[in-house]
């Protein structure tokens, strides 16, 4: 499959490069995320390849591939008896996710229309996602409005169990073996996603711009982790989440250019609420500095805080929350701090107007450190041990 995809991407590149007035760019971005501690760990490696061609400055075509190679050790049965040490019930797992994307863009003098399709596949997951974005520039291009609609058709593999069965009698799926292979012991559950997002970007002054973003998302279908179970007192049952969730978010970003320093102050905040009663606030401050021609450095600090879901409990034996139960630490009250930054180098063109064999070349190196605080989540009596993470990204982009 990868060979076919590589062939298609190469063919796309050659077709674009041979076209008149075509500008082609190829980029690769690779991210490594790792959190570890107390025997629990997650490592994900995300490579991607994108190719984009613009013809006559009007039509843009894009194709891309991205993967996730994820492995780790996690707790399969949350709060199982005797699991005072999270290590004792940790199980090793791994997964491989592939996505292929194709998209287009059509630009007129003051408006743009973009569309994309993404197909994703994992051992236990399939997804089809469509997105359409329309944007328009007004008032001498000082105002930009954009509207995006996204639609997802996902399928999740689960152990075949009668849905009419009491949720406390359902057991967790031990592995992805047999998923999407006509195995009589497996079933496919649907998850439908609708996303609408509007954005208003405004230049208020030569050194000041803002962006307001409003988004809403409706999810309907299976939203649990089929591998995870929660100890309920007499049995460990597969976690049971509601099938409907509506999510709303509003974000505001500000950019100030400080000319004496040749840098920009970037502030952003985001508030979020959903029908599972999770609400959150995110605040980020960053400084991006132009150091030399084409060379920029960015440093940032980000804070995130959320409440827990209405049905979340740290101990379902003593404090049950009705028909739903979860072992997902991301649905508990939590907060995190992130400190990081990046360096980017947009290599200045030489006397011939190019950068070696390329019309342009950009290198990006990014690093972040994250500290989580799961103040109301425990594995038995043990606090979450893997509460620190690092994230590193290397990106390269060449244009022809």
């Amino acid at each position, binding site marked *: 499959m990868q060979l076919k995809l590589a062939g298609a991407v190469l063919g796309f590149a050659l077709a674009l490069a041979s076209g008149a007035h075509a500008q082609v760019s190829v980029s690769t971005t690779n991210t490594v995320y790792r959190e570890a501690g107390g025997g629990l760990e997650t490592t994900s490696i995300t490579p991607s390849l994108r190719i984009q061609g613009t013809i006559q400055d009007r039509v843009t075509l894009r194709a891309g591939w991205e993967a*996730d190679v994820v492995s780790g050790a996690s707790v399969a049965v949350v709060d199982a008896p005797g699991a005072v040490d999270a290590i004792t019930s940790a199980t090793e797992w791994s997964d491989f996710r592939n996505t292929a994307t194709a998209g287009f863009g059509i630009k007129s003098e003051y408006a743009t229309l973009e569309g994309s399709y993404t197909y994703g596949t994992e051992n236990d997951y399939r997804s089809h*996602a469509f997105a359409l974005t329309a944007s328009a520039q007004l008032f001498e291009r*000082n105002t930009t409005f954009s509207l995006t609609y996204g639609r997802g058709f996902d399928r999740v593999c689960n152990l075949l169990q009668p849905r009419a069965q009491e949720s406390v009698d359902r057991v967790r799926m031990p592995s992805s073996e047999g998923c999407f292979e006509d195995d009589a012991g497996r079933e496919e559950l649907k998850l439908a996603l609708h996303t609408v997002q509007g954005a208003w970007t405004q230049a208020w002054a030569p050194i000041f711009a803002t962006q307001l973003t409003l988004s809403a998302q409706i999810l309907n279908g299976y939203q649990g982790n089929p591998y995870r179970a929660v100890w309920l007192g007499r049995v460990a049952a597969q976690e049971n989440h509601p099938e409907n969730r509506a999510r709303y978010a509003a974000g505001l970003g500000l950019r100030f250019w400080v000319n004496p320093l040749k840098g920009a102050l970037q502030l952003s905040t985001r508030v979020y609420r959903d029908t599972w009663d999770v609400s959150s606030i995110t605040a980020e401050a960053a400084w991006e500095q132009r150091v030399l021609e084409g060379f920029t450095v960015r440093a940032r600090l980000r804070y995130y805080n959320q409440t827990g879901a209405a049905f979340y409990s740290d101990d379902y034996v003593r404090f049950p929350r009705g028909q739903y139960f979860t072992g997902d630490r*991301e649905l508990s009250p939590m907060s995190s701090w992130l400190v990081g930054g990046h360096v980017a180098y947009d290599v200045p063109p030489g006397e011939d107007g190019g950068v070696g064999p390329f019309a342009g070349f950009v290198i990006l190196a990014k690093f972040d450190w994250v500290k989580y605080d799961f103040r109301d989540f425990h594995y038995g009596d043990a606090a979450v041990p893997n509460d620190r993470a690092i994230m590193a990204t290397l990106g390269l982009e060449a244009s022809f």
Partner: protein
Amino acid sequence: MAESRSSSELRVLLAALLLALAASGCVTVRPEDKEFLAEPAMTFGSGGDARAQEEHVMGNREGSFGAGSATGGGCGCN
């Protein structure tokens, strides 16, 4: 009572938004004054694929991340 309070807060927010939208039509930054606005540091969404990958990774570690994302794919979480 709480519903009525949140409803009036929503009305105030909506009014502020409409006022800001109306004000945006009066703002004029001339093309020759947009040198700094064209800097990558002043451009929203300039993070590209690196930003998208961060959102994907963090989206699996926070309960509310990425509600605006329209891309597909599984959780990669287990």
